[in-house]
């Protein structure tokens, strides 16, 4: 998918952390992507000259304060929204997972996971074995015949993850998928997601407002500034996996990202006062 628009000169980006030689092919590339929302005479730039390069099979986290255009960015990547200018390249199909599990309450867990396969007219037997595999992957085999309302929030998100994986998307876009879960469940799901990502090799773009979560999960963490959304910093994360949320490297990185995030927020405050 390529959406072409006007091209501008790239803004300089700040790279923090050890730069890594990565020769894997690009899965997602944004070049100078700008999104302006107009209502009458007013216009608001949600995204302003975003440059982004996501390698195939990598885990990219996007963090930012409110109004950084995280949702706009995901919509642009998912092809739901088109950028005002700039170029978006997504190699392959993009799948999307939300903060709400958005499971269909009238379908069982297995039927929810099977739906994307049905929509692509996958043969019945292939479908059944694929659903069984995916439920095994998210440890929900015993709950195949349950309805979503019988599950806990964490279990629903795992079903949603299995359903998103059933789309066989090349790039999985996740919009604060664990934002509504309690801390205990969230920590366990980080471990689960990391394991599943390593097993499946899917490219993941994960949007969150939780800095520690981003440091826990990402190969690279992109910090967006707010109003307009710009890439303020890119952190390459070289910590070994599997990681733990409480380990030193993760908390040090989270501290560093938070410091940068606060600078951005403060800069915004000064900017507001001047106006």
């Amino acid at each position, binding site marked *: 998918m390529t959406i072409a628009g006007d091209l501008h000169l790239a803004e300089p980006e700040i790279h923090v952390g050890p730069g890594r030689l990565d020769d894997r092919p690009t899965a997602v590339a944004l070049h100078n992507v700008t999104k302006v929302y107009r209502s009458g005479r007013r216009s608001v730039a949600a995204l302003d000259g975003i440059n982004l390069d996501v390698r195939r099979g990598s885990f990219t986290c996007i963090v930012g304060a409110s109004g950084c255009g995280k949702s706009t960015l995901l919509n642009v990547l*998912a092809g*739901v929204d088109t950028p005002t200018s700039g170029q978006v390249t997504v190699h392959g199909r993009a*799948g*999307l997972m*939300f903060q*709400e599990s*958005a*499971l*269909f*309450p*009238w*379908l069982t867990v297995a039927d929810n996971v099977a*739906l*994307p396969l*049905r*929509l*692509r007219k996958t043969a019945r037997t292939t479908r059944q074995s694929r659903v069984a595999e995916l439920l095994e992957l998210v*440890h929900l085999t015993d*709950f195949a015949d349950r*309805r*979503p*309302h*019988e*599950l*806990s929030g*964490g*279990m629903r998100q795992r079903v949603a993850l299995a*359903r998103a994986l059933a*789309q066989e998307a090349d790039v999985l876009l996740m919009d604060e998928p664990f934002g509504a879960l*309690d*801390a*205990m*469940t969230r920590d*366990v799901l980080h*471990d*689960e997601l990391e*394991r599943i990502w390593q097993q499946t090799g899917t490219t993941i773009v994960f949007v969150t407002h939780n*800095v*520690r979560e981003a440091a826990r999960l990402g190969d690279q963490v992109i910090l967006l500034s707010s109003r307009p959304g710009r890439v303020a910093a890119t952190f390459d994360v070289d910590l*070994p996996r*599997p990681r*733990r949320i*409480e*380990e*030193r*490297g993760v*908390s*040090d990185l*989270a*501290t560093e990202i*938070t*410091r940068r995030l606060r600078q951005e927020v403060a800069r915004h405050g000064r900017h507001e006062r001047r106006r």
Partner: protein
Amino acid sequence: MAATNAAADAAAGDHRAIGEATDTAPATTTAIDPVTLDHTAAVLTQVESHLAEEIAGLDALDIDDTPRRRLAGLWSSSWPKIAAVMLALAIWQLVVWSKWKPEYVLPAPATALDRLWAMLGEGSTWAMIGTTLRRAATGFAIALAIGTLIGIAVSMSRFVRTAVGSLITGFQTMPSVAWFPLALVLFRLSEGAILFVVVLGAAPSIANGLINGVDQIPPVLLRAGRVLGTRRLTHLRHVVLPGALPGFFGGLKQGWAFAWRSLLAGELLVIIANKPSIGSQLQFARDVNDYPAMIAVMIIILVIGVLIDSLVFAGIERGIRRRRGLTA
């Protein structure tokens, strides 16, 4: 269940507190030992099986498997109904005893129920009930088809909605008796006239139920369907129609009530020779001053209405609601 949630919430609070403290002063995290992991395959598998155990443990705590008490539910839902019927009969009897009207005009419950019992023993009574129920079924089926098609058209197209949306509500509020003059002009004294009125009574409710059902689908489900790759028709089939089912069912129930009322009004007004029905029997009993029979027929009408609502509609609706977790 509640206790688990409370504990989890407390954990969430603690977690945030630690997170915020480390952001400004990293020294506070030294209380938690940094986990060092050896990256051998053995350790990985160990970590994985440990993770699987953790997951299974969380799931077990989160699932509420308290069995439902069904028999107790049946009794507690039926005794108030029995009590209400007894109370109604008692009031009726009291009115008769008060001699407000002579007994040949307002018969006592026992007289009417005796008559009802005798009527139920005659084949002709069942034939007339059969005629009426056949008309109800035909009319309701036609209304279902028309109402569903209109409902889908309105909920799928903004243009159709603006054009006929409010008209449907207008049709719904129109008393069915008001259609009869037109029905008689169009169809004369025939089955067609009765069906015409039944369909016009029920179809708008069914269409409106479907439209409301579609409007009440959470937007995130519509979005999820699109993301998973639905096209126009598959979206309707896999997301919109199943999502609208609870609201649609409400419409069906209301549509049935309107159909039943319109049908009885129709049978009172449009009497077809040699084809006795519940409505014509009611009219006939009045004409020959057979008041116990008149009240017996009224009881039949009431009981059929209640039975169809509670056996057919309430049962299916309860099933739909339970499967989606909409029951308390």
